[in-house]
């Protein structure tokens, strides 16, 4: 039977009927735990090759669900739609391969395996996070380790599958990969202190000169990644005295807040702007930029929404207010590297 517009109009007198008739039959494929990745590929290929119907790929993005159609049909089409499908399926394929061979790749490696497709590393990061949302516990593609840890006593990390990792005492190493179920134990009963630092330079200085005995020193090199925060959360039972040292600027305080989110007992210890002023060395001080002021203001507003179970919050608020009132900021290096 041939379809012509006049025939269609005859059969479908209203606009709604016409749209309904013209919309192709489609199938929905849900990316979630119920379907394994192999199933997802089978469903999609069956749909496209055998049934000749478009697919709706449904997945969670946060609280909302998103639907991508392939091939694109209907009014909701967007130009980058098919590209997004491609990225998503490519990533799923990579994750499936890694999972079957039980290996892991970093986001960076994945990005460089197909730069023209992903264009930026951020894209990979974004979609890997989305896939992790739909497949919690997916560990095949992970961010490269960023944080560093120095321990004065040997620590052992036990994973759920029975494997074990050691962090040798007196050495500095990258923060090891951890799973939700991993546990960390330490030979000595207690550390005196757990020190969290913003700056790697300060970390190196402390580690090289062996300035801190019987302690655990951690740096997330600026804003901490997931792994560093998870690690701190898992070692927090080893010591009750957890101290955070960051720059005396709004970003530093934002970083401190980031750490405190996963580890509420951690205490903000500065470097405070008052301590910098007391050095009487004007080279340690810089003026607050308009951007800094805005960050401080926004953080102060945000603090009001945080629950008050974090006992360190008054100190954080005080630090932010003093930044704004004094109009200056400074870096921790100048204080701690002496």
């Amino acid at each position, binding site marked *: 039977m041939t379809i012509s517009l006049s025939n269609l109009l005859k059969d479908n007198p209203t606009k709604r009927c016409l749209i309904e008739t013209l919309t192709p039959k489609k199938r929905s494929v849900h990316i979630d735990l119920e379907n394994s990745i192999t199933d997802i590929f089978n469903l999609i290929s069956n749909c496209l090759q055998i049934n000749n119907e478009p697919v709706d790929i449904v997945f969670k993005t946060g609280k909302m669900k998103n639907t991508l159609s392939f091939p694109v049909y209907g009014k909701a089409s967007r130009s980058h739609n098919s590209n997004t499908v491609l990225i998503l399926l490519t990533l799923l394929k990579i994750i499936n391969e890694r999972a079957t061979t039980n290996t892991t790749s970093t986001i960076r490696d994945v990005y460089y395996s197909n730069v023209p497709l992903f264009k930026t590393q951020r894209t990979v990061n974004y979609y890997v996070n989305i896939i992790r949302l739909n497949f919690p516990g997916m560990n095949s593609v992970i961010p490269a380790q960023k944080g560093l840890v120095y321990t004065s006593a040997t620590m052992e990390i036990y994973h759920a599958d029975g494997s074990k990792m050691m962090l040798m005492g007196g050495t500095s190493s990258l923060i090891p990969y951890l799973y939700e179920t991993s546990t960390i134990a330490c030979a000595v009963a207690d550390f005196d202190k757990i020190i969290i630092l913003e700056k790697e330079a300060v970390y190196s200085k402390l580690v090289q000169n062996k300035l801190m005995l019987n302690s655990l020193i951690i740096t997330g090199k600026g804003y901490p990644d997931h792994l560093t925060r998870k690690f701190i959360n898992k070692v927090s039972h080893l010591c009750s005295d957890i101290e955070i040292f960051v720059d005396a600027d709004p970003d530093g305080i934002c970083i401190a807040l980031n750490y405190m989110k996963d580890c509420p007992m951690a205490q903000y210890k500065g470097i405070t702007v008052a301590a910098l002023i007391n050095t009487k060395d004007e080279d340690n001080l810089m003026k607050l930029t*308009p951007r800094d002021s805005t960050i401080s*203001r926004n953080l102060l507003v945000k603090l009001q929404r945080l629950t008050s179970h974090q006992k360190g919050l*008054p100190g954080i608020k005080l630090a932010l*207010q003093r930044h*704004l*009132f*004094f109009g200056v900021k400074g870096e921790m290096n100048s204080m701690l590297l002496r």
Partner: protein
Amino acid sequence: MSKVFIPVSNVGKAHDADIYSVKVLKGFTVTASGDGSLKFWSNKKIYQNDFKTLKDDVHVEFVDATGLHHVDCLTVNDMLGNDALTVNIISTVSFNGIIHFYQFVNENLSTLKKIKLLNPEEIKIHSFWSSLWVNGNNDQVVSDRLITSDIKGNTNIWKFELYKDETKTEIEPHLTYQGEISSNEPVVATCVDASAKRGLIATGFANGTVVVSQLSTLRPLYTFESNSSSTVNSVRSLKFSPLGNLLAVSNDFGSFGSITLYETEFGEKIGNLSIPTHSGQKLISGTTFAHNGWVFNLSFNSTGEFLATCGYDSKVRVWDIKLKERVSTLNLSANDIEIEDDIMLHDENGDSTKFPPIFDVKFINKGIINDTNEGLCCVCMDRSIRWFREAGGN
């Protein structure tokens, strides 16, 4: 010649966070703090040196959880009603850049209420930093004004009207926008002051410059550049003398604080206020300093003969303006507080407040905490408020 100031009263841990600003009214000393509240301390109790019950009687008005850093008040007399009324309009700025207004009548805090002088859209477009009321001295020619500075460097001016309309029968405070003195570059306008007598307005910036403009036309007249070679050269405070013929400016000079006097007729620099130093302590370029720390605030006495300054070095200094000499220095320590439990030696982050930096100082007119003498009030980083009066007199 020296002046001696003796303590009248003090209160420690007056707020739960730093106290950034103080304003002395006829009946109350008002403080604004990072804990987000205004507190009204009874001057009568201070007069009677009743420091033990000072905290019991304080009136607390919670304003904004992000904290407050500036407070000022305009007092206007309503001569036309049957009863002579004094209307007080308080403005206070919170750390999120919002300005809040309160009103109370006579010395009766039970009439204290929040009022809306600016609509939310107007408040939203500015990110306020400081606010100031200029009293036209009930002169019919010069109206009262509200002046604000914001973090982008703009100065905004509103005219204040107490009455609803020309008939002056109904009290309904309101503001009409006069205009803006805009800044060429986005730099925080840290402080403003104005002189109704001379018709001048001065704005100080975080980059060390001061712009003096005409109050009626808002046209800039003079620009004073900072003489500091340091990158830390923010203007912390500026004040016109009561007659408006002088402008005192406090600048950061690295970690020191310098105070410069300008005359306002031709915009000439008159000189610096400085303490005698050994040659070894003299700064590069020969400039001398007034405080061994930033000078946070200045206050002229009512006659304009004396200027009180306060600094990060936990000192209040009083200067003779004519001689440009220091006539008094008050060295403050956290241990001065009368009630021992209220002494605060460390803040939440472990920084010492034993020698507390002083954030604000105000001269107090005669008759408020002492009949015959003037006084001083200052707020410090150890969260204390201290009142002093001049010694001697008849």
